C-alpha cells in the first residue's frame, strides 16, 4: 500500500468547540491516512472525538467548532482551501458520508428516486434525466433493493432499506472516500450484518475507501483492515485489525476495551470494565489523558504526554512501550 497515494491525509489536526465556559478540545493532533480501496475503522466512545473527526473531514462542522490546527487533504486537495462553490462540487463527488440515522438523512416528503436524482443531477450537469434514472435503478440493484421502491417514500421502507438507500446516494457519484458514521448502530443485528456484508461487497465491486466510525469493536475488527482507536480526542493506537486481540500487546485503553467485551463463544466468560469515567474535554488530565484510568500508570504518565511509537505493525501512544524500548536497549 505504500506505493499508493493516500485518498485521505489528516495532518496534525486539532478541532475545538467554542463554548461559554471556554474551549472544548474535541480532536487533538491527529494524524491518519486512508489509502485507496482500504477500509479503516475509527473506534472511540462518546466524547472521544470520532464523530467530530468525521464532520471535520467533510467540512461539515457547525459554527461553534473550529479547526485550530492542521490539514485535511482528500486526493491531495486541502478541503479547507476550497471555495464554497468548489466544496459543493467536491463533496459527494469525491467524498461522501453515511450518517447514523437514515430517517433524518432522507427527506420524508420526497420519493427515493427524487432524492437520488437530486444528488446526481445537481453534481453532474452533463447527465440527462434519463441517464440519471438509469443510474438510480443501477444503484438500487447494487444495494439490493427492488427498483420498484424508487417510487416509495422513506417511511414506507424498513430501517435497513432506508440505510441502504442512504448508502446508494452516498456512492451515486463514485466518490473516492465514503465516511460512515455508525451506519448500522440503530439496526437489528441480522440486518446490521447483511448491510455490512453488502458494504464490503459493493466496496470491492466499485472500489472506494471507507472510514468506518463506530464504537463497536468486534464489528469494526471484522470489516476494516486497519483500526484507529481514539481517546480524549487523540488517536492512541493504530493497529491492523487482525492483531486486535489480547494475545497482542496494545495500548492499555485498547486492552481495557478488549477485556470489557464479553466473548460470545469462549469457554469461560469473564469481563472487566475500565475503572473511572471518560475525561472532561474542557479540563483534560495532564500528561497522558488516560492516566487516571490506567492500571499501569506511573509518574511519567502524569507529567509527560507520550509520543507515538511503532510497536511491530502498530502505532501506540504510551510510555509503557517507550520504557520497555529503553530497557531492552540499555
Amino acid at each position, binding site marked *: 500500500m505504500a506505493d499508493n497515494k493516500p485518498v485521505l491525509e489528516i495532518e496534525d489536526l486539532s478541532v475545538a468547540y467554542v463554548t461559554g465556559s471556554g474551549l472544548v478540545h474535541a480532536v487533538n493532533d491527529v494524524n491518519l491516512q486512508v489509502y485507496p480501496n482500504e477500509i479503516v475503522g475509527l473506534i472511540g466512545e462518546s466524547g472521544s472525538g470520532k464523530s467530530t473527526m468525521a464532520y471535520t473531514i467533510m467540512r461539515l462542522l457547525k459554527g461553534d467548532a473550529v479547526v485550530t490546527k492542521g490539514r485535511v487533504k482528500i486526493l491531495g486537495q486541502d478541503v479547507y482551501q476550497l471555495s464554497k462553490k468548489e466544496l459543493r462540487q467536491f463533496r459527494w463527488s469525491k467524498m461522501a458520508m453515511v450518517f447514523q440515522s437514515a430517517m433524518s438523512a432522507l427527506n420524508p416528503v420526497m420519493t427515493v428516486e427524487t432524492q437520488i436524482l437530486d444528488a446526481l443531477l445537481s453534481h453532474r450537469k452533463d447527465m440527462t434525466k434519463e441517464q440519471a434514472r438509469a443510474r438510480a435503478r443501477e444503484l438500487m440493484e447494487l444495494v439490493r433493493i427492488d427498483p420498484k421502491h424508487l417510487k416509495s417514500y422513506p417511511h414506507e421502507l424498513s430501517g435497513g432499506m432506508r440505510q441502504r438507500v442512504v448508502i446508494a446516494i452516498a456512492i451515486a457519484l463514485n466518490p473516492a472516500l465514503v465516511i460512515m458514521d455508525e451506519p448500522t448502530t440503530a439496526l437489528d443485528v*441480522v440486518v*446490521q450484518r447483511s448491510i455490512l456484508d453488502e458494504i464490503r461487497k459493493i466496496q470491492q465491486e466499485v472500489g472506494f475507501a471507507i472510514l468506518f466510525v463506530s464504537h463497536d469493536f*468486534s464489528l469494526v475488527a471484522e470489516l476494516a483492515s486497519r483500526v484507529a482507536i481514539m481517546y480524549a480526542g487523540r488517536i492512541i493506537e493504530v493497529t491492523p485489525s487482525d492483531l486486535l486481540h489480547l494475545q497482542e500487546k496494545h495500548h492499555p485503553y485498547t486492552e481495557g476495551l478488549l477485556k*470489557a467485551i464479553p466473548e460470545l463463544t469462549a469457554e469461560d466468560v469473564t469481563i472487566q*470494565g475500565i475503572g473511572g469515567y471518560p475525561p472532561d474535554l474542557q479540563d483534560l488530565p495532564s500528561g497522558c489523558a488516560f492516566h487516571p484510568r490506567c492500571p499501569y500508570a506511573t509518574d511519567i504518565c502524569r507529567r509527560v504526554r507520550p509520543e507515538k511509537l511503532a510497536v511491530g505493525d502498530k502505532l501506540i501512544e504510551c510510555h509503557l512501550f517507550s520504557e520497555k524500548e529503553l530497557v531492552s536497549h540499555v
Partner: protein
Amino acid sequence: MSNATKTPATGTALLEVKDLVVHFPIGQGQFIRPVDRVSFSIGPGEVLSLVGESGSGKSTIGKALVRMIEPADGSIIVGGRDVTHIRGREIKEYRKEAQMVFQDPFGSLNPTRSIEQHLAFPVRKYRANKGVSVSEQIDELLTKVGLTPVAETRRKFPHELSGGQRQRVAIARALAVNPKFIVADEPISMLDVSIRAGVLKLMNDLRNDLNLAFLYITHDLASARYIGNRIMVLYGGKVMETAPSAELIKAPTHPYTRLLLTATPGTRHRGPLPETSNSAPNLLEGRKGCPFANRCPLVTDVCRNEEPPLRELSSGHAVACHHPA
C-alpha cells in the same frame, strides 16, 4: 461459567408466567399480538435473558411482568400470588416486589431532582419504618451500586453524571424498595463499552449478594450469555428456543437462533446469512404457522400451516420448530 446456579424446579419458582398474551387493537376489530402464549419461570437469584430483535415482544413481556400493561390472557404468578389482573392499590403494593430499569438513563431520571431526592422518595414510601434513617438508607444504596463517595453523589443532579452513573442511580432506585426481582430492559445498550462491563458486573453482584432475580432483556447474545443462567430467544412474540446459556450458544437448534448467532459481530462468519428474506414477522392475531417461516431456510409446507409447539429436547432445552437441528 461464572454463574452456573441450578434452575429451580417449578413450584419453588419466584415468578411463573403461563401462556402470556398481550394484544393491541389496530382498528377494524383487528388485533396484533406482540406476545403470543409465552411461558417461563424464574427462580430466586436467577437471571433469565430474553433475547430478540425489535418487534420480538421482549420489552412488552417486561412491561407486562411489572404490570405496566395488563395481559389479555394467561397468568403471571409472583410468590404464589396471581398478579395478572391486579389494579390500582394492589399494583402499588406489587411494585415492592417487582421493579424495572429502563434502557435510557437520561429519560428515566428527573432532571430537576438531585440524586438524593430520587432515592428519598421510594425509601420513605416503602421502607421508612425499618429503624434506619432515610439518610443512612440512601447512603447504603449508593454504596451498593458503587456510587461513592456518597456525600458527593447525593448532591448531584442527573446532568452531572455520566450515562453509566445514571444507570447505577436507576438501579439504586429500583433496589430502594427491596424488590424480589428486577426487569432490566436493555440497561447497557446506550452505555459506552468501557462502562457496560461495570453495570453488568453490578447486576451479577446483586444477584449473588441479595439473591435478586432478573429478567434481562437484550438484543445482544454475548451479554445475555454472560449474565443469564438461561437464555430465551423470542421471535414474532413467540418463544423459539430456550436453554441454559452456554448450551444455547454452543448447541443452538432453532434456525432463528442460528441466524442470530451467525449475525453477531465477533463470530467472523463469512458468506450469506442463513435466511431467505429479511421480512418482518406477521404479528396479526389469528396468523397461521411458524412466525419465522418466511425467513427460514429449512421451511416446508407444515411450517406455513401449523404452529410448532415448544418441545423439550433435553432437560431445560426446549425448541419450537418442526425441523430442529
